[in-house]
C-alpha cells in the first residue's frame, strides 16, 4: 500500500490562521491582468511615472555619496529625527499639529497598521470598520484574529448612527470593542469622503465610548478640488491615532509611512516596531528626507492631483455614457477609486473570468468585506492606466456586463460558487 503525501511536510505545523491562505481562482485571473493587452482597473498602483526621475536619481545618489555610512546602517526604531520633523510639515497640510516625538516612522503605513493592531488587539477583540473597507487592513485584523464588524456607509462615509448601534450591539454581546478604523478622505475602495460635520460626529462617538479611533489617511493630499480635508486627528491628539504615507505623494516603492500617536501608544509602537522590523530602512528615510528638503514636493503633489483628476474624469464620463441601466457608482473627489454597484442579479466575482477574457480587470467587491458582502459591487481604480485606456476598459466592461445580463436573463441571478482564498490582487498588480 503506497504512503499518501500532501506535498507539504509542514501542513500539520501551521497556525490555524494560515489555513485560509490558499491558492484562488481570482488570484489566477489577476495573473492575466498584468499583461499589457488587459486594461487593468484592478490594482491600486500609484502612477510613479509622473515623478521627475532625474531629480529622484540625483537625490538617491546624493544620499549615498554624502551620507552613505548612515544610510546603509541600522537606525532608530522610531525613525530618523529629521524626517520626523519634516513629516510635521506634511501633516500640517491636513491640519495636524504634533511634536516629532509623537511620530513613529514605519516601512509603509501598512506596518503602522500592523503595529497598532498588535498593541491594541487580543484575539476576539472587536474592530469596527467601514462597509466596505481597505483590504490590507482587513488582512491585518484577521491576522491578529480580531472580530471585524462592518458598519454601514453612505455618500459621506461611515454612518454615525450605525456606528453607535454597532458599538452597543457588540457590547451587549459581551465583546470588547478596541478600535474604530476609518479612511475619512477619498476612501479605498468606496471613493467617498467624510465632511467636517460627519468627522465631528464620529469623533464624538469614539470619545464618548472611550474607543481608539484609527484614522488612515494615505490619500488626504490627493483631493481634486479645494483644500485637503482636515484630518480628524487635528481635533483630538489623545483619542486618535493617525496613519500617513509617502506611497501616493512620492513613491510606493520607497516604503515609508508613519503613525502619529499619543504618548503612551507611541512608546509601545516603538518597542513593537523594534521587535518586528528593528528599524525602518535608513536609506529610504534619508532619500525621502532629502527629497522633501530639496525638491518642490508640494508642486509634485499638484502634478499627481492633475494626473488623477484627468483619469477620474475619463472614468466617470465613460461610466455615464456606457453603463447599463441599474448600474450606480460613487463620484470620488480625490484618491484612486470609484465603487460600482452592478444591476440586480449580477455578481462581480462570477463575472470576473468573462471580464478578463474580454481583457479588462477589476477587483470584485467581496475582497473588501470579511463576511461575504459585496457580491454586487466592484472597485474600479483609475490611478494607473492612461485616460484613453480607461475609456477602452469601460467599453469592454460594459460589453461584459451586457452579456452577463443576458446570461442572468437566461438562467436567473448569477453567483460564483463560494470558494476559499484571496479575491484581491497582489500589490504589484496594475
Amino acid at each position, binding site marked *: 500500500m*503506497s504512503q499518501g*503525501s500532501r506535498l507539504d511536510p509542514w501542513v500539520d505545523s501551521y497556525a490555524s490562521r494560515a489555513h485560509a491562505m490558499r491558492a484562488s*481562482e481570482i488570484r*489566477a*485571473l489577476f*495573473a*492575466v491582468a498584468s499583461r499589457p493587452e488587459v486594461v487593468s482597473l484592478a490594482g491600486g498602483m500609484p502612477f510613479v511615472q509622473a515623478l521627475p526621475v532625474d531629480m529622484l536619481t540625483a537625490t538617491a545618489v546624493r544620499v549615498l555619496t554624502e551620507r552613505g555610512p548612515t544610510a546603509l546602517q541600522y537606525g532608530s526604531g522610531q525613525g530618523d529625527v529629521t524626517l520626523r520633523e519634516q513629516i510635521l510639515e506634511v501633516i500640517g497640510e491636513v491640519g495636524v499639529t504634533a511634536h516629532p516625538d509623537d511620530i513613529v516612522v514605519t516601512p509603509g503605513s501598512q506596518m503602522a497598521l500592523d503595529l497598532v493592531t498588535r498593541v491594541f488587539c487580543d484575539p476576539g477583540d472587536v474592530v469596527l470598520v467601514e462597509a466596505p473597507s481597505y483590504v490590507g487592513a482587513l488582512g491585518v485584523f484577521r491576522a491578529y484574529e480580531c472580530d471585524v464588524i462592518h458598519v454601514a456607509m453612505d455618500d459621506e462615509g461611515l454612518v454615525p448612527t450605525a456606528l453607535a448601534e454597532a458599538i452597543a450591539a457588540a457590547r451587549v454581546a459581551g465583546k470588547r470593542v478596541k478600535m474604530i478604523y476609518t479612511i475619512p478622505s477619498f476612501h479605498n475602495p468606496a471613493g467617498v469622503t467624510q465632511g467636517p460635520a460627519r468627522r465631528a460626529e464620529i469623533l464624538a462617538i469614539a470619545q464618548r465610548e472611550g474607543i481608539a479611533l484609527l484614522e488612515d489617511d494615505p490619500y488626504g493630499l490627493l483631493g481634486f478640488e479645494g483644500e485637503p480635508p482636515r484630518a480628524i486627528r487635528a481635533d483630538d491628539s489623545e483619542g486618535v491615532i493617525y496613519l500617513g504615507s509617502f506611497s501616493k505623494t512620492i513613491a510606493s516603492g520607497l516604503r515609508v509611512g508613519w503613525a502619529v500617536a499619543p504618548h503612551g501608544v507611541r512608546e509601545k509602537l516603538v518597542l513593537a516596531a523594534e521587535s518586528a522590523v528593528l528599524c525602518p530602512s535608513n536609506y529610504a528615510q534619508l532619500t525621502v528626507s532629502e527629497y522633501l528638503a530639496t525638491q518642490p514636493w508640494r508642486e509634485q503633489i499638484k502634478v499627481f492631483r492633475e494626473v488623477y483628476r484627468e483619469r477620474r474624469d475619463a472614468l466617470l464620463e465613460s461610466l455615464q455614457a456606457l453603463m447599463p441601466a441599474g448600474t450606480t457608482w460613487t463620484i470620488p473627489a480625490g484618491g484612486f477609486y470609484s465603487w460600482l454597484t452592478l444591476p440586480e442579479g449580477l455578481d462581480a466575482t462570477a463575472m470576473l473570468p468573462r471580464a478578463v477574457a474580454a481583457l479588462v480587470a477589476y477587483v470584485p467587491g467581496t475582497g473588501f468585506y470579511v463576511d461575504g458582502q459585496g457580491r454586487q459591487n466592484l472597485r474600479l481604480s483609475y490611478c494607473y492606466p492612461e485616460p484613453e485606456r480607461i475609456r477602452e476598459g469601460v467599453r469592454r466592461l460594459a460589453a461584459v456586463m451586457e452579456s452577463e445580463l443576458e*446570461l442572468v436573463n437566461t*438562467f436567473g441571478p448569477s453567483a460564483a460558487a463560494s*470558494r476559499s482564498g484571496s479575491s484581491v490582487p497582489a500589490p504589484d498588480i496594475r
Partner: protein
Amino acid sequence: MQILVLAGGLSAERDVSLRSGRRVAESLRRERPDWEVLERDVDSTLIPHLRAQRPDCVIPLLHGAAGEDGSMRDVLESLRIPFVGSAASASRLAFDKPNAKHVLAAAGILTPPHVSMPQTTFRELGAAAVLDSVVERLGLPLVIKPARGGSALGMSIVRRAEDVPAAMVAAFAYSDTVMLERFIEGTEVAIGVFSRDEDLVALSAVEIVPENGIYDYAARYTAGTTMFYCPARLDDDVAEAAQALALNAHVLLGLAHLSRTDAIIDSDGRAWFLEVNVAPGMTETSLLPQALSEAQIGVGSLFSELVERVTA
C-alpha cells in the same frame, strides 16, 4: 541546441502555465547543461521571434485555450518548427471534452453520460425546460464544467436541481459551451502516458483525495490541501485497467509524446474516462511529476528524451 519553453499566455491558467514552464526549463537546464534552454511568454512578438531565432525545438506548456486547443501548435507546424507534444488537430480534439468523450465512447470506452450545449440553446429553448430534461436524463449529482478549459476553473459538482442554474453561470464564465456530466462516485485518479523508443509507457495512477471532497482550483494548487497516493490504492487488475484506459485514450485521440488522463474508478473497479490533457501541469503540486517521481524519472530527463525524439 536551442530549446524554447513557451509558457504564460492570456488564459485563466496563465499562472499555472508560468510555474509549469519554469519547472520544466530549470529541470532541463540541469539535465542538459550543453543545451540553451530559453523561456518565453506568448505575445505579438512571438512569431517574429520564432522566424528569426528558429529554435531547434519548442516545448509548449501553455494551458487552457490557445495552448491546448491546437492553435499555437498550428502556428509551430506552419513555421515548420519541431515541438514536443501532440499535433494541432489531435490537441484540438482532446481539448474539447465532449468531442473527446464521443470518440472514446464510440470505441467502447466507458465515460459518464453527458450533454453539452452553447448558451444560445438555453436562450432559445428556455433554460428551465432544457435543464429539467437534462437532469431527468442524467440524474443528480451532476458535474458541470466548461466544455473547454482546465484546472477545474468554473467546475461545480451539483447535488440539487435548484443549484444547477448558478453552476451553469459559473461555467459559462469560462467557455461558450458547457458540459453537464453524470457524477460517478469513486476514486479519482490521473494516469500519465509518455513515449519511450517505439513504445508508449503508462505511469502509475495517482490517487487524489482532496480534504474538502472536491478537487477544485484551491485543492490543486495549495500544497497540503489534498492527499495524493502514488501508486493509487487499487487492486493490481484495476490499476492495470486504469493504465490501459489512459493508453487507449492517448492512441484513439491520436496524441503524441505526453498526455495525462483523468478518470474515476467506481466501486465495481471500472475505470471511467473523464478527460485528457495534452499539456499536463508540471507545477510542484501537479499530478504527472508525482507519477514520474514514483517511476524515478526526472522531469528534466523525460523532456530531454522527448526533445531528442522530436529533433532526431
